[in-house]
């Protein structure tokens, strides 16, 4: 059985004028970590809210843990954990009181499921008498994860769990998710960070409410058509203009400390011809190397096509 299924889910806001989710269809297998990757406003949170029974979709069907999100919403609420993008625990209660509260309203106790949260909880346990509102960003995320896990949910929903968290805490957080996966919990996680996408079992790329691609991270980058080159030079600003005006160029973007360049046809991918062109333009210290595309490259490539 699938942990989550979506079948042509559509959601609009403002009486149908704003299309947030457009016929989204995907499936998350039991025990899988599924990433929903897309920029802000792509419709990720709307999908989360439909699946967590907080929002009714206009059309389409969806199930979570085998239960229908509309007809059997009460059963879903018993067996999911939800961590919204915004920190939403009681700031005026302490760490321990928050955890205890969420355990008791699910008719369980911290003790009963301590194994599940142990790895995470030990990190915040020294602060268990501190009010949740006084915790640092990373600590808050850990507490929120603990609270979402305390009743041993079958499906875990994490809506942008690492937005606004420092780089070290982000890595730690994903390590924790990896461990949860071994406990057999299915996870749907959304993120605007492409580097985190690689850590999922499967990813869906979403933009403008449309699901553009569903595959494993490795298969996703393989879908990249043609060759991709990284180009560097002494004058990076002028390099971008020069590359964009090159006749064979399909697209060129600044990417970290290099330009990622793709060509209209593989025949255009002639390094010596490009070098000659750039040298004529006065570029020095040229470095041109073929690279394998990342998820972000692919994302830019397909959204570019989408936007014409």
């Amino acid at each position: 059985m699938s942990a989550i299924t979506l079948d042509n889910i559509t959601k609009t806001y403002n009486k149908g004028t704003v299309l947030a989710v457009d016929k989204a269809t995907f499936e998350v297998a039991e025990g899988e970590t599924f990433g929903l990757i897309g920029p802000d406003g792509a419709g990720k949170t709307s999908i989360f809210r439909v699946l967590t029974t907080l929002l009714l979709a206009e059309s389409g069907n969806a199930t979570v843990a085998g239960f229908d999100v509309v007809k059997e919403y009460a059963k879903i609420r018993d067996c999911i954990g939800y961590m919204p993008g915004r920190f939403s625990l009681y700031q005026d209660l302490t760490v321990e009181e928050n955890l205890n509260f969420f355990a008791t309203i699910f008719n369980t106790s911290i003790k009963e499921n301590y194994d599940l949260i142990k790895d995470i909880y030990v990190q915040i346990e020294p602060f268990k008498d501190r009010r949740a509102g006084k915790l640092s960003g990373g600590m808050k995320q850990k507490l929120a994860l603990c609270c979402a896990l305390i009743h041993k949910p079958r499906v875990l929903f994490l809506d942008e769990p690492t937005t606004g968290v420092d780089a070290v805490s982000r890595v730690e957080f994903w390590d924790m998710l990896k461990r949860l996966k071994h406990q057999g919990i299915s996870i749907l996680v959304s993120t605007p960070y492409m580097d985190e996408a690689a850590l999922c079992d499967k990813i869906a790329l979403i933009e403008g409410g449309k699901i553009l691609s569903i595959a494993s991270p490795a298969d996703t980058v393989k879908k990249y058509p043609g060759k991709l080159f990284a180009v560097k030079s002494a004058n990076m600003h002028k390099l971008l203009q020069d590359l964009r005006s090159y006749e064979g160029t399909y697209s060129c973007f600044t990417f970290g400390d290099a330009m990622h360049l793709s060509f209209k046809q593989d025949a255009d991918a002639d390094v010596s011809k490009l070098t000659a062109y750039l040298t004529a333009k006065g570029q020095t210290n040229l470095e041109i190397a073929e690279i394998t595309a990342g998820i972000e490259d692919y994302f830019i490539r397909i959204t570019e096509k989408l936007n014409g």
Partner: protein
Amino acid sequence: MRTLRFLLQKEFRQILRSKSLLFSIILGPIIQLTLLPLAANFEVKKIAVAVVDHDHSTYSRKLIDKIYASKYFSNGRYRESYKEGAKLVEQNNADIVLEIPHNFEVNMVRDGHEELFIAVNAINGTKAGVGSGYLGAIIADFNQNIRLQWDQPGHFAEAASIDLVNENWYNPFMNYFLYMVPGLMVSLLTGIGAFSASLNIVKEKEIGTIEQINVTPVKKYDFILAKLIPYWVLSMFVFTIGMIISRVAYNIVPVGNISLLYGFLSVYLLTLLGAGLLISTYSDTQQQAVSLAFFFVLVFNMISGVFTPIDSMPGWGQVLSYISPMSHFAAVMRMVVLKGSTFHDILPHFVAIIILAVIFNTWAILNYRKTT
């Protein structure tokens, strides 16, 4: 039941932890109840009278002495002309200018009649009305005395006068506190109830915790009850403190049955908390909720009859007053405390408040369902 217990535990923990909330719902009313009755006094005292005496006669002297002998008028100033007297009013140093004309005494004795002129600063309507009333009474009394002096013994007075003897029922000594303290208690409890109830659900909305609660198996009625019960209990507690203060500080002992007051209050609070909840369901932020609650509490207060009599309101005001829960509580409070009314006497108010409780709460719960 088990869930409700945990929710209540959480609510009380949050309330007891918030110092500003505790202050505004417990300490605040205590301070207000000890100070406000002294300040919110309708009695008008220390009216400043400026006298412009053009006559300087025995009669004018006597009249002025009589006015200043009254406890309601503070010693004013003498001015030579009306213009100067009016200037004092402009500077806010006098409330009334009394002008005694030339030949006041002569005309009085010769013609048996003379006119005085009073100019009143009507910026403060109450003070102006009451002040000119007092002054008129004093002058009438002065007039009467002079007539009596002139009348020869055995000679009937030309105008027979009627003396009125009045008795103040339920408050024989016109004790101001007896009337005002119960009214202020109604006003305070209404404020606390409406504000705290309108804030608490919207607070969870604003912080986002309601999302987290909504994905749990917690039932809506459990959640709402857990929000209402703490404030119901706290308001009862504040009322008890208020009763103790009015007993100790103002020596007010309700003539009627106290349990009747508690009985009515318990239903009144349901109405009020329901109204607060309703505001909560219509607002997205605490700021919106406070603005709305402030508006309603102000209107409730104005038309409640606590500060002004309902009977003198225009027709629509009386209708508004009837559908405002606060006026019923104010009426019952005064009926029971001052008059010793029984359950039978306050039954119409009881029925009205129960109907209002049902309306507000049903509306609130329906609207809460809709928004989530």
